[in-house]
């Protein structure tokens, strides 16, 4: 799920307003965008790359390693299955408000095919200084600077904040992985930790979680066997009980999902959990 230099990126929704805005920045940052997908504009060219009708066609014409979805919720399942069936190694689904039954189908298909599915409702993935897929301000050097801290976050805005706090004290980042804010997602926080553990350019890890669900409790089980230092911030300590904060907090199983449960599980696993994001760099020993 980590974006590699030279990987061929195909963007669904390249010709739309947001797709154009962000793809232009992805390309300027060095991301190897090779094609776009649009049913209505197939056969044309946009941002200097060909626009084709499907991922299957892109795989044949330009090659396909990473698929990125800048598409509405109603189109996301069909295009994601197209990308998986066309041999994408990684599929990044940025779309918010995808019906969870569609997401479950995407996850099942990705597992069967051995595809890394990132998202949905993610801000994307960044390999700092090399490329990004999604809508992170990777190109802003007051937020992202090359270094060796890997960051995993459910939320894009909190991921941005965490990277900025690191950059301020001179701790650069290696990789950002946005696992997405939905209760069901293709890549779990624990799987993202495993990827950062195995990544040679990463020597320390920042984990940004939220109340709700059991992603952080499961990640704690993974964190216990990782020797790289990990610092974490969990959002939602001050949230009132029983109110659904945005899309988070949908499924609280037993005692899991609460702030206390997550903090205790991570602390038990040797992770340093901080009270506010500005404490993250010092928790890594910076």
């Amino acid at each position, binding site marked *: 799920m980590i974006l590699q230099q030279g990987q061929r990126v195909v963007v669904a929704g390249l010709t739309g307003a947001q797709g154009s805005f962000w793809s232009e920045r992805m390309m300027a940052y060095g991301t190897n965008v090779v094609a776009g997908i649009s049913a209505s504009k197939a056969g044309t060219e946009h941002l200097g790359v060909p626009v084709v009708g499907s991922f299957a066609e892109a795989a044949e014409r330009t090659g396909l390693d990473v698929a990125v979805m800048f598409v509405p919720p109603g189109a996301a399942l069909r295009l994601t299955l197209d990308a998986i069936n066309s041999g994408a190694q990684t599929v990044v689904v940025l779309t918010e408000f995808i019906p969870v039954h569609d997401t479950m189908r995407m996850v099942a298909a990705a597992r069967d095919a051995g595809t890394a599915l990132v998202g949905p409702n993610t801000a994307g993935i960044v390999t700092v200084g090399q490329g990004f897929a999604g809508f992170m301000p990777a190109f802003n050097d007051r937020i992202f600077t090359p270094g060796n801290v890997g960051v995993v976050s459910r939320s894009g*805005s*909190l991921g941005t904040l965490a990277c*900025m706090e690191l950059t301020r004290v001179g701790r650069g980042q290696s990789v950002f992985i946005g696992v997405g804010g939905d209760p069901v997602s293709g890549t779990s926080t624990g799987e993202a930790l495993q990827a950062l553990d195995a990544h040679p350019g990463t020597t320390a890890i920042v984990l940004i979680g939220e109340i709700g669900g059991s992603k952080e409790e499961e990640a704690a089980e993974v964190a216990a066997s990782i020797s790289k230092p990990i610092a974490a911030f969990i959002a939602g300590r001050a949230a009132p009980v029983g109110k659904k904060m945005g899309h988070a907090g949908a499924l609280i199983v037993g005692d899991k999902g609460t702030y206390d449960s997550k903090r205790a599980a991570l602390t038990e696993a040797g992770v340093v959990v901080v009270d506010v994001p500005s404490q993250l760099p010092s928790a890594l020993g910076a």
Partner: protein
Amino acid sequence: MDFTEHVAKRLLSRHDIPTPPSILVGANWPTTDLARAMSTFEGRPVAVKAQVPAGGRGKAGGVVLTSDPMSAVNQMAGSTLGVHTVDQILVEHQVDIAHELYLAIAVDGSTSGPLLMFSPDGGVDIEASDTPLTIMALSIGSEPDVSELTAVLSEAGCPEPVTEVAQVAARLFAAFVDADAELLEINPLAVTGRGAVVALDGKLTVDDSAAGRQEALARNASVPPTTGLEAKAAEHGLRFIELDGAVGVLANGAGLTMTTMDAITHYGGRPANFLEIGGDAYTLAVPALEVVLANPKVRSLVVNFCGAFARCDVMTGGVIEAWKTLQPDIPVFFSIHGTGMDEAREMVRRELDAEPFDYMDDAIKAAVAAAGEDQA
């Protein structure tokens, strides 16, 4: 979206899961209509059940077993159960119960798929039961295998007729998929003295993101109780929750909004609200600010933007426009970072003659101080 019992049971019936014969009556029905409807029960024992979307209804007096449904309905109509007013009542035949089982299917974030849950100890005391739930992962793309279900249920202590219960479980899965459900629960699923399997209660939660393709269901969704401000925010599609503190919060994304609330608390203050304007709502700064400032408890405001997808210049432009329109009499503290931050910070300096803070923590500390330390 949450639903009351009778909506859930209608879904179950459509999928051939037996439910008791019943009549749904409105609290405002004229006496003659009600009498005519109740006469069809011919004095048989019935259950009179308030249709409110809350757990623990039976223990709160929302279920009455009687042979005189008229007076039970009259007593229940218009009463309050917790935060809900009873405006619909379901009257149904009582069932000769031999066993009460628990059967549910839910979306599970850990396995990213549907999970079947079963207990042989169903009924109102399920939460106090010592018997752990038996769980079984189902696959979203295929029908569950009834013989496999039968084996799992047998192992879990399900009484006879196990195959029938397994059939109900398979149909429950079809209904779960059909309705884009996050949760579909039968508790209790009764086995009668004659060995029939009947759903006596139903609970349904449907994915909000599927409302567009579940129009018929969406029309029958229960409306959660909200404050006036929460309802006003919902009209604009904004997710707003009113809290008790004095520091107003305007931030983008659920994660950053919660973090802002956490930091306010960490530095000794109390947040006045949760309000998310991230995602597709990032152009809605004007109505968002209107809602935040309409709360009379607010004594200072933190505007905390960290733009990834949401562009700080667009959001800040909206805040400035709203600020000039509303001309609020409270201090505001800006922390603006990420996509479009330079344009946004320049706009704040130019239009509001204010200096955005370089550090989020400093903006929040200043807002907490401005709100006063004596927050009751």
